[in-house]
């Protein structure tokens, strides 16, 4: 849209961040009665971002030299795709939340929701390290409010684990950013990343970045918060957590690492191995879940696998980056929208209208995201796999075979886990009392249709080739077998299976701490202050556990008592003596010299 005045963008770019924040602030200070219209407005504050995606493809960057370290906002082809699905998902989840969240909790919910949204949308247009880090922190801390929204034990527990990992993530990213900047003095992310390739400490910083962003992206074994937090949050928040915010970690990796310029075979190989492991483990763990949202969260860990694999592949062999980048974009977009649709499906059936034809139609539509997610031929899921086929072809020997095997395995497992997901949905729908609400099912339908008709967006973004290839009948043969096997397997197990699947408790390896915690709890002298809430749920809050371990193995008690006593002693008089002594000694020292 070249007819727009250039100055327009000077306002639109900041508006992406400022508008939701302003509404959040107004909600925080306003009162219940006056905030009705603000709440109605809330989901629509994602519009500036969408406007940017549609009309701001080739706008020059906006410089705000006085803000933070000197801020630059802008959009390129890569971030544009991220901004597209991110803004769509936040918008729809926001609309859904208007119906889903009880009205007496909406002000609070949207306060955190909009702040997290501002951070998430903003970090995609941030082009300098200062504003990126600030917006990333805003998103991370604000979504704590979403995780603990329900205020029950699982939510608080998940919140604790989440918060610890957020702080840890910040502490991993900070030194990486500072060290990179100290070496290159580049504030723009692109230049900063380019300089990283020449930095002698490059590998170390790369690892810090991968770990820091990996927490958000759910790389093994930093994924532990994800299956706890995503299900604990209310459904619309789960959708954006698992659909959009998880991609912020991925986005961070791709823009901060000089992919295509930096080669590090060991790091790349490690990332690839962990990604493949995550793909398999996530899918396997998902199948065992009894809570539909925990199932979806594990599936997110699984689906992040291919994307982080692409990052690893580009680190392993930089020439693969263009291919990997396309793979990441297509896959991220498909996963975000479809995962969002699946999350919103949880509980959506109860909100369907009771009138027969509409209801039946909606129930049938509800199967669409399952088909897309499983990657049935001609769907977005099938398209998303195609770049990985190309990637596979370009990869050196063992990796191609491994990727192939894992993709097939995951395709099979995805069908099984979706089957189970549908069974869990039906189980829950039977238990729920119907409460028809247009405000819930219309946004749900919106995301479902978006994910089903993602082809349109792929066309617009210039991936016609992949869409055509996926639609051609020749592609069907390659895609279908694992899916059909999965379907038959599920049906068989459903029909003839006797024993229920044992459940892997969400948070998996976190539970390894459990026996240790029980042992340590017995020897705990009470702390004057509990750092976090009482460990009420069956599992162990990580901070309290660490503290107990500290207490056991570090001389915390002697430290407290000792330092308290020394301080007391210092205050009771000998201090003056000490100071005079210092003075006296220094005099003697000086005279001697």
């Amino acid at each position, binding site marked *: 849209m070249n007819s727009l005045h250039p100055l327009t963008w000077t306002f639109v770019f900041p508006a992406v961040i400022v508008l939701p924040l302003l509404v959040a602030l107004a909600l925080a200070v306003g009162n219940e009665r006056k905030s009705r219209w603000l709440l109605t407005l809330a989901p629509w504050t994602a519009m500036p971002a969408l406007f940017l995606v549609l009309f701001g493809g080739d706008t020059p960057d906006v410089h705000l030299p006085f*803000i933070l370290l000197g801020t630059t906002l802008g959009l390129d082809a890569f971030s544009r795709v991220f901004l597209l699905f991110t803004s769509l998902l936040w918008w729809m989840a926001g609309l859904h939340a208007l119906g889903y969240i009880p009205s007496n909790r909406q002000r609070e919910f949207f306060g955190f929701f909009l702040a997290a949204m501002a951070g998430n949308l903003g970090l995609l247009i941030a082009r300098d390290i200062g504003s990126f880090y600030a917006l990333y922190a805003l998103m991370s801390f604000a979504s704590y409010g979403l995780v603990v929204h329900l*205020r029950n034990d699982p939510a608080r527990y998940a919140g604790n684990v989440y918060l610890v990992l957020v702080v840890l993530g910040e502490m991993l990213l900070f030194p990486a950013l500072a*060290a990179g900047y100290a070496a290159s003095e580049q504030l723009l992310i692109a230049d900063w990343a380019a300089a990283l390739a020449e930095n002698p400490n490059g590998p170390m910083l790369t690892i810090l970045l991968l770990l820091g962003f990996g927490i958000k992206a759910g790389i093994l074994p930093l994924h532990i918060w994800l299956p706890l937090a995503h299900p604990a949050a209310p459904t619309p928040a789960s959708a954006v957590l698992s659909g959009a915010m998880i991609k912020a970690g991925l986005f961070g990796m791709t823009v901060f690492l000089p992919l295509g310029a930096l080669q590090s075979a060991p790091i790349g190989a490690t990332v690839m191995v962990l990604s493949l492991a995550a793909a398999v483990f996530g899918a396997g763990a998902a199948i065992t879940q009894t809570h539909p949202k925990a199932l979806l969260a594990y599936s997110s860990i699984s689906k992040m696998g291919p994307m982080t694999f692409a990052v690893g592949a580009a680190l392993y062999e930089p020439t693969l980056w263009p291919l990997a980048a396309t793979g990441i974009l297509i896959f991220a977009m498909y996963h975000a929208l479809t995962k969002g649709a699946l999350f919103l499906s949880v509980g959506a059936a109860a909100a369907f209208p009771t009138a027969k034809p509409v209801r039946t139609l909606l129930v049938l539509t509800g199967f669409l995201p399952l088909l897309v997610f499983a990657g049935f031929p001609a769907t977005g899921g099938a398209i998303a796999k195609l770049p990985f086929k190309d990637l596979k072809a370009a990869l050196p020997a063992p990796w191609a075979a491994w990727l192939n095997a894992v993709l097939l395995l995951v395709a099979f497992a995805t069908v099984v886990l979706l089957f189970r997901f549908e069974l869990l949905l039906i189980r829950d729908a039977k238990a729920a009392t119907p409460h028809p609400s247009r405000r819930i099912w219309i946004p749900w339908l919106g995301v479902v249709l978006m994910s089903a008709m993602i082809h349109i967006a792929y066309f617009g973004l210039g991936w016609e080739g992949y869409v055509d290839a996926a639609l051609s009948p020749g592609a069907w043969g390659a895609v279908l077998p694992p899916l059909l096997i999965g379907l038959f397997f599920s049906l068989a197990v459903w029909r003839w299976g006797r024993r229920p699947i044992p459940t892997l408790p969400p948070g998996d390896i976190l539970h390894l701490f459990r026996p240790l915690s029980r042992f340590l709890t017995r020897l705990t002298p009470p702390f004057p202050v509990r750092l976090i809430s009482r460990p009420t749920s069956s599992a162990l809050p990580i901070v309290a556990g660490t503290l107990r371990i500290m207490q056991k193995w570090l001389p915390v008690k002697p430290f407290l008592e000792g330092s308290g006593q020394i301080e007391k002693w210092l205050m009771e008089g000998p*201090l003056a003596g000490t100071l005079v002594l*210092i003075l006296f000694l220094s005099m003697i020292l000086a005279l001697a010299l």
Partner: protein
Amino acid sequence: MNLNFWLPLFIPSTSLAAGVVIFFLPEQMRLTRSFLNMASAILKIALVVPLIWGVFHQQEYRFVLPLFLEFDLVLEADSLSLLFVTLSSVLWLVTTLYAIGYLEDGFQRSRFFGFFSFCVSATTGIALAGNLFTLLVFYEFLTVTTYPLVTHRGTEEAIQAGRVYLLYTLGAGVVLMVGMIWLSSAVGVADFEAGGIPEITRVTTTAPLNVIFWMLVLGFGVKAALVPFHGWLPVAMVAPAPVSALLHAVAVVKAGVFGIVRVVYDVFGVEAVTAMGVREGLIFFAGATILYGSLRAIFQDDFKRRLAYSTVSQVSYITLGTAIVGPLATIGGIAHLVHQGIMKITMFFCAGNLAEELHFHRISELRGVGRRMPLTMGAFTVAAMGMIGVPPMAGFFSKWFLSLGALEADMPFIIGVLLLSSILNAAYFLPIIYYAWFCEPEHPLPERPATQRWEIHPYLLLPPVFTALVTVLLGLLAAMPLSPLSWARLIMFREYTP
């Protein structure tokens, strides 16, 4: 003899004069007293503004009063002193407003506000002091004027705290005085000079200089709460909230650390300090203090005590930035002088509000207070995030430049100290935020009286909200000219370019 000569004297004098008048006001003349308080605080700011412009444009503001021998009373405005003067006069205005709201129903108000004014006078004197002698004169004056503030409540505990405070600070004062005289006999009496006193660089035997350096730094280190000289600070918590606020953010602790900054930069100078090999020792002191203070803070349940230990830790960021002796670390340390002040004063205002309105003094009591006092706790949240170093709050930028400075000086382990401290900061601040916003109160909180429009009297509400806003703005607009960060850059520039 023009305005440029007298202006540096006027600035401390405004509050000195106000203090003298206030002493003789009868207790019940509340309005006059408040008017005098506010008027002198505003007048001071009005006097500082032209100074900022002038110093930025390299004008000289210098007042000299010859006393005895070669010891002159010199008040001079340079870029560093102006940073401190601006900080103290702005925060003073805010604290005065807060103190009026907090204490005007109390007793001995004339005494309190009189010393309160003297105290700001002493602080601005310290800021503007042009040589070590003048600095020490005002430094002792500060000690004497803060003692009645600490013991204001007159309880057994307060008097005990006052005794401890005097023991520490007077003891340190003796060491400082001897160090100053010794330095004068070694290199002569000289004014502060960016880059160090020239005579010092000419001295060949550094050994006595080393001793003098440590006497001065550790002498100032007592007020700056360097471990192991920090003990008085948590004890002084018995003082009323506005006093704690100013002790921690503006006056006493800051005066100590300002002294260290002066000694390193303008007495010895960066070259000499590096050559003398004392910076590693000072870094060790600062680093140990940062970690020790944070560790102790975690285990305090008393709100103000936790804040006090946090001050011990945070103020040493400034010492650390000074000790690294490099341009970027200097920016970080000096900017933190302002940032820490703004953030910490916010926290003490909030602690005071909780004590005043709900009589809550312990952190474990704070469950659910966010709903009852949202603006107070909102301000606290902003300040706490800043302390942890989350952008866009001001604290992030201190940490950022300190880290860059550490890398510049090739001491990456300092980043480790900073990160560890940030984690500890998170460990003792986040639970407070968690209690306030995400927990239900154990007992129903006292309701807001129907006659009360806001969650607390506006005089008590306005200051923390204002300083929290400033905390955000200082960070958000960090790159703007005349922001504390940019001003710190200016100071660094004048310090490192001979």
